[in-house]
C-alpha cells in the first residue's frame, strides 16, 4: 500500500461514500422516476413520456412564478427584519444580548406547521386576538403578505445569526480605519463594514430562499385559501391525490432543484466577486460601542420582534394546549391541563413518539455531523478531483422538498433485489433526516475549515499521522465547536420533521410530528399543541444547555 499512489485520500473517499448513500441515492431515484414513469414497478419503460404532461400543465408557469415571488419576498423581508437587529447586536452593547439571542433562536425551533396553526388561531375571525382586542387580521393572514409574514418569522433567525456573527468578526476595525481617512460613521458602515459582511449575508439569504421555496406547511395552510399555489403544494397534490402521479411530482421537484441551484450559483458569483479573507478570521475587536440615546429605541425594536416572532406564537400554542375545548375560548373556566396530562400519562403513545424522535434526532445529528465534517473537508481542504460534485451533493438537499426525499428513498430502498434494506425500519427515517439536514453541518464545517490553516494538517501528517488520524486528532477537534452547534440544530429540526416522516415512517413507528399531525387530523388540536409545546421546550432547552455547559451561548444558528 505504501508504494501505491494514493490518488484519493481515505477522508475524501469516506465523504464520497457517505454523500452517495445519503444524498445521491434518493436524488438519482427521483431523476430516474422523472424519466421512467413506471419505475415504482421496477420498469424502465417509456422514458421521458411524463415530461410533456407535467411541463405542459398551464398552471406550471404561474406556480413557478409564485414560488420565486414567495422566495424573493421572504428573503427581502427576512433581510429587512434581521439586518438592522444583527448590526445593532454585533457593533453595539445591546442590554440583554444573550437573552435576545435565545429569543430569536426559538422561532426557528417552532415547527412551521405548528407556527402557522398558532397564527391562524390567533388572527382568524374570533381568534385569540379578537377575543382579547376585539378585532381580527384574518384577511391579512390568508394572503401573500400573510404567508410571507409567517414564513419570515420562521426564517429570519438564520439571517440574524449569520450577519451578526460576520459583522462581529469584521468588527469596527476596518470601519475605524475608514473614519481615520475621513469617512463619516454612516459612510464607513456602507463602504466598508457592509461590503465586508456580504459573504455571511449572501450565504444566509440563499439558505432562506431555499427554505422558503421548499417549505410546505405554510403555503398549504394559508396559500390555498388565497388561491396562491406554489410548486411544493402542487408536488404534494401529485403524491397525495389519487391517482398518484410520482413522475409528475419528480419532474416538478427537479424544477424546484433547478431554481434553488440558480440561487446557489448567484450566491457563488457574488462571493467570488467579493471574497475577503478578513471575514474568516477570529473576532479581534470585542469592544463594542455604547448605544447612548439609541438604547431605548433599539431595545424597543428587539422587544417588538421577539414579541411577534417568539412570545405570540408560543402563547397561542400554550393557550390552545391549555384550553379544555377550542370553542371555550380564552376563559379561566376553560383552563385545563388534561392535554398535558394525557401526554405525560402516555395514554396516547406520546412518550414513545417522543423517545423515538429524540433518538432519531440524536442519530441524525451524529451522522450528519460526521458526514458534514468529512464532506466539508473534501470540498475545502482536499484537492481531490470531483470535489465540485461533492460540493453540489452537499447543497442539493436544500432544494429537495421533504416529501420528494421520502418518495426517492422508498423508490431507491424498496427494490426487491436488495439483499438487505433499511426500508421499513427506523433507519429509513434516519436516512431521510440525514439527507434533508446535511446542508446545515456542511455549512458550519465549511466555514470552520476556512479558518484553519493548511499547515495544521500538514504538521500532523509530517509528524506521522495518517490522513484519517490527522482528521480525527487535529481537524475534527478544531471544528468541533462549530460542528457541535450544527449538530444541535440538526437534532432540534430532525426531532420534529413532518413532511417526510408522514410518508416514510415505518409501520408501527410514530414520531413526534406524525403524532401531532394525527391529533390535528382527528380534530384533537389541543393535544397536538400540548405535544408541540413539550417538543419546543425540549428541542430549545437541550441544545442551549449543552452549549452553555460548553461556555457558548446563543450561537446555535
Amino acid at each position, binding site marked *: 500500500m*505504501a*508504494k*501505491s*499512489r*494514493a490518488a484519493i485520500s481515505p477522508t475524501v473517499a469516506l465523504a464520497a461514500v457517505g454523500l452517495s448513500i445519503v444524498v445521491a441515492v434518493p436524488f438519482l431515484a427521483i431523476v430516474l422516476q422523472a424519466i421512467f414513469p413506471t419505475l415504482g414497478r421496477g420498469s424502465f419503460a417509456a422514458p421521458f413520456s411524463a415530461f410533456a404532461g407535467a411541463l405542459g400543465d398551464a398552471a406550471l408557469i404561474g406556480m413557478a412564478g409564485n414560488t420565486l415571488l414567495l422566495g424573493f419576498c421572504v428573503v427581502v423581508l427576512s433581510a429587512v427584519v434581521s439586518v438592522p437587529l444583527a448590526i445593532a447586536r454585533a457593533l453595539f452593547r445591546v442590554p440583554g444580548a444573550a437573552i435576545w439571542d435565545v429569543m430569536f433562536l426559538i422561532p426557528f425551533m417552532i415547527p412551521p406547521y405548528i407556527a402557522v396553526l398558532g397564527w391562524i388561531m390567533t388572527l382568524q375571525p374570533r381568534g385569540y386576538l379578537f377575543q382579547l382586542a376585539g378585532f381580527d387580521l384574518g384577511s391579512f393572514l390568508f394572503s401573500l403578505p400573510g404567508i410571507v409574514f409567517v414564513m419570515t418569522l420562521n426564517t429570519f433567525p438564520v439571517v440574524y445569526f449569520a450577519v451578526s456573527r460576520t459583522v462581529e468578526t469584521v468588527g469596527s476595525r476596518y470601519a475605524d480605519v475608514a473614519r481615520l481617512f475621513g469617512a463619516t460613521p454612516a459612510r464607513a458602515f456602507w463602504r466598508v463594514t457592509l461590503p465586508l459582511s456580504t459573504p455571511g449575508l449572501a450565504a444566509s439569504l440563499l439558505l432562506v430562499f431555499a427554505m422558503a421555496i421548499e417549505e410546505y406547511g405554510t403555503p398549504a395552510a394559508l396559500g390555498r385559501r388565497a388561491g396562491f399555489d406554489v410548486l411544493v403544494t402542487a408536488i404534494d397534490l401529485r403524491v397525495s391525490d389519487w391517482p398518484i402521479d410520482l413522475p409528475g411530482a419528480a419532474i416538478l421537484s427537479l424544477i424546484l432543484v433547478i431554481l434553488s441551484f440558480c440561487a446557489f450559483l448567484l450566491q457563488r458569483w457574488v462571493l467570488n466577486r467579493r471574497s475577503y479573507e478578513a471575514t474568516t478570521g477570529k473576532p479581534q475587536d470585542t469592544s463594542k460601542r455604547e448605544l447612548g440615546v439609541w438604547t431605548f429605541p433599539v431595545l424597543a425594536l428587539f422587544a417588538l420582534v421577539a414579541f411577534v416572532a417568539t412570545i405570540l406564537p408560543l402563547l397561542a400554542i400554550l393557550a390552545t394546549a391549555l384550553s379544555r375545548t377550542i370553542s371555550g375560548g380564552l376563559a379561566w373556566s376553560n383552563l385545563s391541563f388534561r392535554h398535558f396530562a394525557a401526554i405525560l400519562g402516555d395514554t396516547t403513545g406520546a412518550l414513545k413518539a417522543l423517545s423515538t424522535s429524540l433518538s432519531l434526532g440524536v442519530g441524525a445529528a451524529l451522522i450528519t455531523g460526521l458526514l458534514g465534517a468529512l464532506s466539508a473537508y473534501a470540498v475545502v481542504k482536499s484537492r481531490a478531483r470531483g470535489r465540485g460534485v461533492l460540493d453540489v451533493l452537499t447543497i442539493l438537499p436544500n432544494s429537495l422538498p421533504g416529501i420528494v426525499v421520502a418518495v426517492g428513498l422508498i423508490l431507491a430502498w424498496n427494490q426487491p433485489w436488495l439483499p438487505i434494506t433499511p426500508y421499513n425500519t427506523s433507519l429509513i427515517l434516519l436516512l431521510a433526516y440525514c439527507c434533508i439536514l446535511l446542508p446545515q453541518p456542511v455549512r458550519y464545517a465549511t466555514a470552520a475549515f476556512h479558518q484553519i*490553516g493548511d*499547515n*495544521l494538517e*500538514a*504538521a*500532523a*501528517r*509530517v*509528524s*506521522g*499521522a*495518517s*490522513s484519517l*488520524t490527522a482528521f480525527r*486528532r*487535529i481537524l475534527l*477537534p*478544531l471544528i468541533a465547536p462549530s460542528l457541535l452547534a450544527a449538530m444541535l440544530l440538526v437534532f432540534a429540526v430532525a426531532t420534529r420533521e413532518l413532511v417526510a416522516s408522514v410518508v416514510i415512517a415505518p409501520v408501527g413507528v410514530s414520531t413526534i410530528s406524525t403524532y401531532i399531525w394525527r391529533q390535528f387530523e382527528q380534530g384533537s388540536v389541543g393535544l397536538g399543541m400540548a405535544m408541540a409545546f413539550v417538543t419546543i421546550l425540549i428541542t430549545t432547552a437541550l441544545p442551549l444547555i449543552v452549549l452553555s455547559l460548553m461556555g457558548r451561548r446563543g450561537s446555535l444558528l
Partner: protein
Amino acid sequence: MRQDTPSAGEAQHAIATRALSLSYGQTHVLRGIDLGLNRGQTLALLGPSGCGKTTLLRLVAGLLAPTRGDIFIDGRQVAGQGVLVPPERRGLGMVFQDYALWPHLSVAGNVAFPLEMAGVGRAERDRRVMAALSRVGLAEMSARRPSALSGGQQQRVAIARAIVGEPRIVLFDEPLSNLDRELRETMVAELGALIRDLGLTAIYVTHDQSEALTLADRVAVMDAGEIAQLAAPEDLVEHPASPKVAEFLRLGAVLTLRRVAEDWHLGQHPLGLTGGPASAMAHVLVTPRALVVADAAGATLTGDVIAIQYRDTAYAITVRLADTAPVQTVQIASNTRMRIGDRIGLTLLSDRLRWFPAQSPHPLKETRSC
C-alpha cells in the same frame, strides 16, 4: 508499477531529486529540479516569493505529489512513477512558517504528538517531550496552551515537535520569517547549533540571504521554478552564476554595459574598462569593493548621494548615477561622511568586477544564463 533504482549518487544522498516537476495545468510551478544533499548537511532553498521553494519542500515532505520526476530519501524512492509514500511514512520533522501548533493541545501535547503516532509508551514519551522542550528552553511551559506563548516561544515549541521523534531529516519552511529581526538573529544561531549537535540533515527554505548563508552548507538559489545556482555559500558570494543571483544575494549593483570598440559604455559614458566577454552587451556586477570615490570633475562616472547609513565601521552610501536611463544606483563604502545631494565621482576597478554576457538590454528580464 516500475520502480526506479536510484543511481549511486542518489543512494548516497540523504535527499535526492531527479527531474522533479510540478505543474497545475499550464502553470509550471517547478521544472526539472535535480538535487542531492549529503547526510548531515544543511541545504538552504533561497529565492523570492513564488519561486517554488516552498513547493519543493512540500514535495519532499510528501504534502504534494510531483507531476513528473523522482524523490529519494535515504536511497528509498518516496515519489516517482507509481510511487507516492505519504508524509507520515517518510520519517521527517518539519517546522512551518506559521508554526502550525495545534491550538486545542497543550505545549506538551503538541510535542508528544509525533511520539504518540510512533506508538511510543507514555513514560518514555513524557521523558522525551520534556527533553525536547528543555532543549529549546521551554520545559516550564509544557502545560500551557500555545496561544499563551509569544511568537518566538511558539516557534521553539514547533522546533521541539520537529525534533522530538529524532528524525534524521528536518524540513524548515521559512521558520523565522514571522519573528522580529533581533529574535531572528538569535534563533538562527540557536538553530545552527541544534542542527549541528543533532547531526541533522536539513532543508531550510528562506527568502533571507543572510539566514541562508549563515546556516547552510549548500545554498540553492531558486527562480521561476528552477534552480538558478546550487553552491556553497562562499562560492555563491564569490562567483554568482548570473546577474539575477547576484542581485538576489544583494552583492551589489548590476549594470548593463554596451561594447564600443575596445571600451565599454554605460549609457553615453565611456568607462575605460578592459576585459569582459566578447559580446555586444554585458552585465557587470559592481560590488562596493569595486568602486573608488574620485573627484567629480573628470571622473568616468558621476552621481548624487541619495542615502547614508552608518554601518559597523564605515558609512554605506547610496549613489544615484547621473545620466542613466533607467536610473541606476550603486552602493559604496566610505570612511568620510557625505551629505545628501553631494555630487561625487566614481571609478570602477576592472579587476574587482564580475562580468556576465548578455543579449537583452536589461538583466532582470533575462532568464537564467548558466
